[in-house]
């Protein structure tokens, strides 16, 4: 079974039922048939002529005109030309290399100059940066010194407020920056800057306060160290003074001993003095000033007499038996005390 091409339509063989010789001009396909006949006739004539030419070759016909003469292009020496070309190429290469070298040298020189210039610029920039840092530090140091010198140094915000106030008094109007009268982003940035400045100022104040506290603590510590050192020095001085005064004390003791042995003590001196009679109630104790030297003389509750420790003046006490004793008697009687009672 044959397969039918479905994409190409079925071929139709159309057979013209009319004989071409019978066709007339104006009939369909008349001229097509005439053209085929004429072409076939021409091809037949040409084929026939070609066969005749093959059978009877004709002599070549002379050209109608002929140009005679010659042109000498000279001798061409390829090797010479090659050598010259190589020499030229070498010359060109040499010139190119020289030019390249010169250009390279010039470039290197230019690079060196630029490098030197860049180094100079870098050094200048470095110097300028150093100068700027130095000025900033100097400014900060001066600010700190001023802040330390004067505790009531105004802050940047306060100074800005004062400048604003002064400008307002002079008639300058501060441009309103804000969402209603400017760029909101700019206003936000300005607000951020102000907040940053306030934070910086607060940090600076805190740092200053901390430095002040540390300084005060340091001063206190130094004061305490000084006090401790002074106390140590005083203690050392006292110690060495006490040690150095030992011979003096010994001498004093010896002198006192000698005086005692010689019997020139104050109490002994006054032995010859007449006793002063004073009266007191029974059991009465007290003190009185010695009429001779003014030294305080104590009288015991049951004492019958008293002696001045300053001059040795003796006192005789007359006890009045009618009154009750002010001081109770001793709980345990001791030997030798009944004499006074």
């Amino acid at each position, binding site marked *: 079974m044959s397969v039918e091409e479905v994409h190409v339509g079925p071929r139709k063989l159309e057979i013209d039922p009319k004989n071409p010789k019978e066709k007339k001009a104006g009939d369909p396909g008349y001229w097509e048939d005439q053209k085929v006949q004429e072409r076939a006739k021409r091809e037949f004539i040409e084929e026939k002529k070609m066969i005749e030419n093959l059978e009877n070759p004709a002599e070549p016909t002379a050209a109608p005109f002929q140009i005679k003469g010659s042109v000498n292009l000279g001798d061409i020496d390829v090797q010479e030309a090659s050598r010259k070309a190589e020499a030229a190429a070498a010359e060109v290469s040499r010139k190119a290399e020289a030019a390249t070298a010169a250009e390279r040298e010039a470039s290197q020189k230019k690079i060196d100059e630029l490098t030197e210039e860049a180094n100079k610029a870098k050094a200048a920039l470095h110097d300028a940066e150093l100068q700027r840092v130095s000025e900033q530090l100097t400014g900060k140091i001066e600010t700190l010194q001023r802040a330390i010198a004067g505790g009531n140094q105004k802050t940047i915000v306060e100074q800005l407020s004062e400048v604003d106030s002064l400008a307002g008094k002079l008639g300058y109007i501060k441009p309103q920056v804000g969402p209603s009268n400017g760029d909101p982003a700019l206003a936000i940035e300005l607000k951020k800057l102000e907040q940053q400045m306030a934070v910086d100022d607060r940090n600076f104040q805190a740092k200053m306060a901390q430095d002040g506290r540390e300084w005060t603590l340091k001063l206190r510590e130094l004061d305490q160290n000084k006090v401790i050192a002074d106390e140590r020095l005083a203690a050392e001085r006292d110690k060495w003074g006490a040690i150095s005064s*030992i011979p003096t004390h010994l001498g004093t003791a010896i002198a006192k001993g000698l005086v005692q042995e010689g019997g020139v003590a104050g*109490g002994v001196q006054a032995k010859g003095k007449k006793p002063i009679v004073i009266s007191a109630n029974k059991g009465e104790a007290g*003190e009185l000033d010695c009429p001779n030297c003014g030294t305080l003389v104590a009288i015991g509750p049951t004492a019958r*007499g*008293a*002696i001045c420790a300053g001059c040795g003046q003796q006192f005789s006490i007359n006890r009045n038996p009618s009154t009750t004793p002010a001081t109770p*008697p*001793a709980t345990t009687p001791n*030997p030798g*005390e009944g004499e006074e009672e």
Partner: protein
Amino acid sequence: MVVHLKRYGDILLGGLLAEVSPELFKGILTELLKKTTVAEASEWVTKDYVLLEKVPPETLARLKSFSPRFGNTSWLTAEWVIEALRDDVPALASLFMGWKKGYNWLVRQVNIIQREIEESRS
């Protein structure tokens, strides 16, 4: 070397203490009795208080630690105490000088102190 130095130091300290012990005692006694009134001293005598009990415990402990180095304490008598008090506390000195009961009490206290020193030495 250090041992020698310590020994010499002990000897020197002991010698110095033995030399200055009367003055040391005088200073302690004066300091103890400086603020004592005649009435208080009379009460001590009449009630027969022990003087060493009136000494602050830390001072007493220090005294006991020093007492072995005091050397001969034969100078420590009631008369010496009265003489020591005479300059700085004359009223008390006069109390013990003129009041026999007070003098006897002072003798007893001195004896007690002497005994304490001897005990600490042994």
